[in-house]
């Protein structure tokens, strides 16, 4: 599905990714974890072609990322901070993204799932952070692509929407899709993810299931297992 070899990225003097190798097989939910500044977002942006790596190769579904933009038809991406043009209405934004990417009818189901009907005629600048995130989720999930990338999907969501999001993610997984998630909410990660990819200092420190991680660190629960990696490496 996704294959990354020897990925290097530097921003000025700041070496963010240094020789990262990662293979993600098809189907399942993968959580990309790591402390702040470990390169999670950079890794995702490299996958999307928004950040250009200094060295290394990335291929998504067999297509090299460098060569074209059309592979992005197969990726749904939820950005971390959703800032939309403030004088557009929600309805217009959805219509516009459809116009740019191709038609779909799933958006209606998603709008009713997240109860966004009353906001369709409101301008994006007047929406609360949580509502914006819901719009963001609609835009992401409406295209039914085989690879879904979610950068901090839970931010700003109320408990009900969070439950709906978890259901949605599980539903997409049963369709055989590959889902990449980054999050700092450990309980969310533990609940949804099949496999963990732990980034540390620009490299993969650990890749495997949560049980394997617990065994490796000799910790009874997931949150402490993550914490022990961080203290062992930073204290």
């Amino acid at each position, binding site marked *: 599905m996704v294959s990354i070899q020897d990925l290097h990225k530097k921003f000025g003097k700041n070496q963010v990714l240094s020789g990262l190798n990662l293979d993600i097989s098809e189907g399942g939910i993968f959580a990309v974890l790591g402390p702040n500044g470990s390169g999670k977002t950079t890794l995702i942006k490299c996958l999307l*072609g928004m950040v250009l790596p200094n060295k290394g190769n990335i291929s998504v579904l067999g297509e090299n990322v460098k060569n074209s933009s059309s592979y992005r038809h197969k990726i749904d991406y939820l950005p971390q901070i959703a800032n939309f043009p403030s004088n557009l209405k929600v309805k217009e934004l959805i219509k516009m993204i459809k116009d740019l990417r191709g038609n779909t009818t799933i958006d209606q189901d998603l709008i009713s799932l997240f109860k966004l009907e009353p906001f369709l005629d409101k301008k994006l600048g007047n929406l609360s952070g949580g509502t914006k995130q819901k719009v963001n989720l609609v835009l992401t999930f409406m295209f039914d692509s085989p690879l879904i990338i979610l950068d901090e999907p839970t931010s700003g969501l109320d408990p009900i929407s969070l439950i709906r999001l978890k259901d949605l993610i599980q539903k997409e997984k049963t369709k055989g899709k590959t889902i990449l998630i980054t999050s700092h909410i450990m309980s969310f990660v533990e609940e949804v993810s099949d496999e963990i990819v732990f980034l540390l200092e620009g490299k993969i420190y650990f890749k495997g299931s949560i049980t394997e991680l617990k065994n490796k660190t000799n910790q009874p629960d997931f949150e402490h297992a993550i914490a022990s990696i961080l203290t062992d490496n930073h204290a």
Partner: protein
Amino acid sequence: MLKILKYSFYDLMRSRWSYVYFAFYLLLGVVLLFLNNDLSKAVITLMNVIIVLVPLIGTIFGVMYYYNSKEFTELLLAQPLKRSSIFLGQYLGVAISLSMSLILGLGIPFIFYGLFKSTAIWDFSLLLITGTFLTFIFTALAFNIALSNENKIKGFGYAILLWLFLAIIYDGIFLMTLIMFEDYPLDKLSLIGTMLNPIDLSRTLILLKLDISALLGYTGAVFKQFFGTNFGLIVSISMLMVWVIMPVFRIVFKAKKKDF
């Protein structure tokens, strides 16, 4: 690219500033034409306003639009779109909507004045063409500056400096050089000097067409002598085109190499 262009254009057409800009030119056109009945004087006054104001507005709008739509650009970058089409679409959206404000704002009062019956129609059209060129040039330069500077304040600063330099300081330096080296033949230097500044070039172009030798100044006179009126017009218009094309190429080049 056309889709991005369409959305940028609509986005700007809806913003208050396009109307303010349009209303300003409308007012200027009405005042100049109906309160002062001399058409050629009106055209000269308009030229002086256009040559300073159009680059300023183009620069500010270009930089502002780029920084304001940054997050949205990131959303577009994650879609299956080419980088060059995203940025060219946005650039053309800004440049075309600004040119529309200029052309409609000045055109409407002139049509009511009876432009189509007047002999000044070519002078006036040339004025609008130059204004449009200047809009495209300075919006492209502004996009270049914004693409190269992550920091908004720096970007704005450089953009204003660029405008100040080309609109005012350049002339001063140019004049000083001409005075300092007055003992030498300066025809070639002044020709090159004029071509290297799109604002000077536009001024020379309009004055050549109006054929007012008193206002041409030294560089204009050299220009006229060297190229003649008609060839001079062609040379200066092609130079203005080069001034559009070069920064646009750099937008495409820069956008391809940038991290977002």
